[in-house]
């Protein structure tokens, strides 16, 4: 090994550096999470004592997150949006994977690069470009044929589309990687054993892809859940949680209830991430 042979002080310094790095990683999250339990109206020092009010209290001014209808509604919209985004992007990710792994068509490489591009377009620009196109289209239709297409106006639909536009790249990459590992002779074996094509897809190919689809779905869900830049421009009256929290912070004033939500999200997404990794490390990985 590169290191094992080295004098151990170097290794110790290296380990210390790694430890420091993980402290750096954890610090803001721990800070954000910890202040959820501070018995104070402001998420700041000094420490006023431990409380669970910011989770469970049901009266102002210390309205806990589980009684704060707006936060809960934001949470609900976040779930709805993330659910749609995950479902859609996993679906398109799967078709893309089949397209690029199995398909044979001109300009495949160029199109493959085009598929990656959304990942590197700044989220803000994705948001505004979609906003501009959607509202110009809606305005045009309204002006010319007096057709009002409400779904082209900022709202859940556009938010879902906006997030979908770059999340799909992620899901496509994840599922493509898995499909590339798939031994196509497995499908032939199933055919050979008498299965119809539909049955092969249902019993062999999709089950093989399932771990990747689940993992991609979770990633898509989380990315959608935490997305801010793209959503900011496309959101209508149904604001997801990040936007609600941002509005709270920038326009109303934050209370430790935001820390409580953060704590809740850190734990929740940590658990989801864990699941996604466990699923990926599925036994069928060989």
């Amino acid at each position, binding site marked *: 090994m590169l290191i094992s042979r080295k004098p151990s002080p170097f290794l110790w310094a290296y380990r210390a550096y790694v430890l420091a790095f993980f402290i750096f990683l954890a610090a803001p999250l721990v800070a954000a999470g910890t202040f959820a339990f501070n018995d104070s109206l402001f998420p700041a020092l000094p420490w006023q004592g431990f409380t669970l009010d910011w989770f469970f209290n049901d009266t102002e001014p210390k309205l806990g997150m589980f009684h704060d209808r707006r936060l809960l509604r934001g949470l609900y919209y976040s779930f709805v949006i993330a659910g749609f985004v995950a479902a859609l992007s996993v679906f398109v990710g799967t078709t893309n994977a089949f397209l690029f792994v199995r398909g044979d068509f001109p300009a495949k490489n160029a199109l493959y690069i085009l598929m990656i591009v959304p990942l590197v377009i700044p989220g803000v620009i994705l948001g505004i470009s979609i906003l501009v196109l959607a509202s110009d289209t809606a305005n045009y239709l309204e002006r010319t044929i007096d057709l009002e297409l409400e779904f082209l106006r900022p709202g859940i639909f556009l938010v879902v589309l906006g997030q979908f536009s770059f999340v799909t790249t992620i899901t496509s990459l994840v599922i493509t990687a898995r499909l590339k590992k798939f031994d196509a002779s497995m499908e032939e074996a199933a055919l*050979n054993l008498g*299965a119809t094509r539909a049955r092969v897809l249902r019993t062999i190919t999709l089950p093989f892809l399932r771990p990747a689809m689940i993992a991609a779905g979770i990633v898509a869900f989380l990315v959608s859940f935490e997305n801010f830049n793209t959503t900011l421009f496309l959101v209508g009256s149904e604001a997801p949680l990040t936007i609600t929290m941002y509005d709270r912070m920038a326009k109303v004033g934050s209370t430790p209830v935001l820390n409580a939500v953060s704590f809740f999200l850190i734990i929740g997404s940590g658990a989801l991430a864990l699941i996604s990794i466990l699923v990926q490390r599925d036994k069928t990985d060989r």
Partner: protein
Amino acid sequence: MTITPAYDLECIDIAKSFGDFRAVKDVSFTIPSGSFFSILGPSGCGKTTLMRMIAGFETPSGGDIKIKGASVLGTPPNKRNVKMVFQHLALFPMMNVYENIAYGLRCKGVSNDEIKLKVQDVLERIALPDVGHREIHQLSGGQKQRIAIARCMVLDPDVLLLDEPLGALDLKLREAMKIELKLLQHQFNTTFIYITHDQSEALVMSDHVAIMNEGRFEQIGTPQELYHRPNTSFVASFVGDSNRWSGKVADSDGTGGKVRTEQGLDMAFSAAAGQTISTGSEVDIFVRPEFIRTIRENDPAAAISDGDNRMSGIVDSLLFNGANSRVLVRGWSGELIEADVILTGTDDLAPGEKVDLVWSPAQAMCFEKTGAA
């Protein structure tokens, strides 16, 4: 009038082109019921393509394939009663052993009770009665192999195709599985078609072997026929080891005569069965190492028949390998010749010693050079 067909599988002038490239060229053969038939050929010669046509994954560009006497050209792969064991087995990792074996039966719509019986039965026949609940990754390489065969055999196929199924196994296991496969075929008494590029696999297991080269069958025969009486120079060089000389026939009575090799050596030969070789033609001569005797120069004890070829040289090196040891002898014109020897550690040949190599003309297989070769 119902005639039970004599052959499980017949291929008639079957051909396959990929674009301009002709991967399989007018191959015809028939396989009698219940036999173990191997197709042996170098990598890329078209073996897999041929097999995939039989299984229905490729459509032939020409010719006909008959299974049990009926053409299957129009039958989709999932309707043909030809099962296939894939090179990497293609067991389904998301199902356990039981489900893997049951898969084909479920596709057929067999009832659950019957499936249970049949799966248990086939597991017993491959001597793995208790692995049904195991996951695929819990099996050893040899066990996987057997499950892959069981998965096909449970469907009672007319023909079982095996595409280099031992390719992925390690050396020791491969040796063991060779024998096992042959026993399994006896057990099921089904026609096996076995593809390989490893000659020892083909020779050891098969009733009949077809040697394939560049999309064509060069020879079909029993292992012994191929080894001892090859029809073409390709077969002679591909099956078994041999020393090879090129030369020109100096004198021939049609079935035997004398050749002068490129190195200037005179050599007596007898032509391969059915060939006539005329004086003046360019030929390749093959002599297997086990038919060359190495004797110490001027060893009085050595008994040499009169007609035997004889050549002197110097021992270059000894390749000790137990019963398969070889000696490399450098002939006077510089070529290296391999001969089998027995090295016991006492009174062996040593590098640098002068030796004579001796072999009978009957073991010198001679083939006229074809234009292309």
